[in-house]
């Protein structure tokens, strides 16, 4: 969310401006390396620097445009991508910071979206923190997880899911230093992170799906996953039995009992479980700390569209209505639990989506519908190469 003028006091805004300027300066240097290092042209040109402006400019235009793509949620509401995590994963951290910063700058100057004096706050928050957190987590997970496309998309999911609340935490930090209102820090923290954990899940789903879509067509363009394309083939061999060990690049499906689908499913499941665990831990943990103040929960609930006058905890139609589980006295634990339940519900919905999508695709290919519906609930990611 774009912070307007007057939300953060002048000294902290100025300090954030200095920080943002430094980050952008560093990114300007780093982006030359990121965009110059990977060139299909011949050796006759000096590699690098002069590619930065057109490529980063086009990526910034992409982020600007993709923020207009509406993702319907339910009942007429829709969300859109924030893009920090996506930029970090697709074009690298430096270019990512640079592109998101330029987008924020132009939104501030042209559309008055985000105050001019708050530009530093906005860039620090939404460009620097989001991109760095997302990229750090993404790289870490890609290293830890088994190699492959699904691992990349899973890592993208977690990275994006964490990056959004991380920005909220950073915002709270700046608010604590230079907030202009007397709303207690705990309340701001709870409200910001609580809301942004939810937003983060949407961002995560979209980011992971988008990264998956790019991976399926141009894996070489995904900065965070460069070099993964070839080992993808090699890694199937150990699970395919001794015959494949001799011939690492061979197609393991040659073996008559075809263990490959099972193997693939098993490794997928592992990735999936890791992703679920990470998401649960993060959402639960963040919500736990987010729940320090009952006011915060109320605020989150109000932000989510409940009546602003609801000071009494009136609306209890839904068990998660104000993000604490009913009948659990300790607000922290119940808040954390609500987070976990929320993640669980999202995962369930997400799995349902994949089952539906799988079934549709299966039907389109004239394969047995039931087959897809029964077997593939554990395969969350599909990255078809539809022409």
């Amino acid at each position, binding site marked *: 969310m774009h912070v307007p003028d007057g939300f953060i006091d002048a000294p902290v805004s100025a300090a954030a401006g200095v920080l943002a300027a430094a980050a952008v300066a560093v990114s300007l240097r780093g982006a030359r390396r990121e965009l110059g290092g990977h060139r*299909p042209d011949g050796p006759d040109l000096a590699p690098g620097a002069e590619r930065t*402006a057109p490529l980063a400019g086009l990526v910034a235009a992409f982020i600007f445009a993709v923020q207009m*793509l509406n993702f319907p949620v*339910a009942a007429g509401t829709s969300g859109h991508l924030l893009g920090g995590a996506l930029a970090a994963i697709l074009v690298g951290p430096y270019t990512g910071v640079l592109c998101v910063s330029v987008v924020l700058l132009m939104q501030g100057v042209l559309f008055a979206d985000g105050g001019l004096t708050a530009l530093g706050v906005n860039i620090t928050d939404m460009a620097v923190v989001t991109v760095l957190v997302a990229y750090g987590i993404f790289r870490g997970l890609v290293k830890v997880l088994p190699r492959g496309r699904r691992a990349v998309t899973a890592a993208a999911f977690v990275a994006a899911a964490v990056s959004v609340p991380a920005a909220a935490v950073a915002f709270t930090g700046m608010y604590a230093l230079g907030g202009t*209102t007397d709303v207690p820090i705990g309340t701001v923290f709870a409200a910001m992170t609580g809301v942004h954990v939810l937003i983060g899940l949407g961002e995560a*789903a979209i980011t992971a799906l988008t990264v998956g879509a790019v991976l399926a067509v141009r894996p070489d*363009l995904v900065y965070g996953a460069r070099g993964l394309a070839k080992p993808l083939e090699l890694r199937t061999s150990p699970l395919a039995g001794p015959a494949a060990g001799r011939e690492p690049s061979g197609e393991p499906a040659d073996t008559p009992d075809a263990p490959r689908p099972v193997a693939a499913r098993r490794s997928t499941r592992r990735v999936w479980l890791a992703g679920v665990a990470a998401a649960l831990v993060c959402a639960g943990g963040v919500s736990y700390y987010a729940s320090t103040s009952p006011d915060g929960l109320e605020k989150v609930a109000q932000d989510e569209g409940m009546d602003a*006058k609801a000071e009494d905890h009136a609306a209890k139609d839904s068990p998660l209505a104000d993000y604490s589980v009913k009948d659990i006295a300790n607000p922290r634990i119940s808040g954390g639990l609500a987070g976990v339940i929320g993640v669980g519900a999202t995962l369930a919905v997400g799995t349902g989506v994949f089952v539906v999508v799988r079934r549709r695709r299966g039907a389109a290919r004239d394969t047995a519908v039931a087959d897809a519906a029964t077997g593939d609930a554990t395969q969350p990611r599909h990255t078809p190469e539809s022409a």
Partner: protein
Amino acid sequence: MGAGHAHKLYRPAHSPVHALPPHCKIAAVLCFVLAVVATPRTALWAFALYALLLAAVAAAARVPAGFLLKRLLIEVPFVAFAVLMPFVATGPRVHILGLSLSESGLWGAWNILAKGTLGVAASVLLAATTELRGLLLGLQRLRMPPLLVQIASFMIRYGDVIADELRRMRIARLSRGFEARGVRHWGVLAKSAGALFIRSYERGERVHLAMVSRGYTGTLPVPDAAPATGGQWSRAAALPAAALAVCLLGWTL
């Protein structure tokens, strides 16, 4: 969020405000907003004066009030935020119309609303009286790194082109009977986003080739522009100077 019609932000006219060099205007708006932000929130009259100052600039620039007010709508999310404030802030409470409101929360809400609105109005006036290209050149003359200005100008140049591609993809989806109605359609939308990224990146590569073919070595030529005269600077400084005076009065009175 921007609707992609960047060129509609600018209102061409011949006015003293339009005629000022862009970098003077940018600096003036920035200083003005800084003064506004630094004003104590209890000085209600100061904000009224700021609003009058902006109204005077708008009148001089022949920007109609309706245009300005419509563009102020971008602020709506923060109005919602500000409305919540009196309910959640701590401190002594007052009772208005049967609601228990925090006094400091009310002040906080006022603070955000007043300063935010003035900031948005100032930015809107800047964008309405300065062409896009002028804004970018102005930023460059204010010592923003040239590479950053280049990236921004490519973003502006191709923002519409890419938004158009997005629109065509949507029409193509609709034409084939697909309409995204809920979360289960996200996969398709994300594929559009992925395709859009690939197209954007590849266009970036083609643009780079076209640039290199015409001798690009990393710097874009900056059109020669006469430096701003002292008169222009002082005219541009009228707004922030008045604001500074108001701000200082706000602290002393």
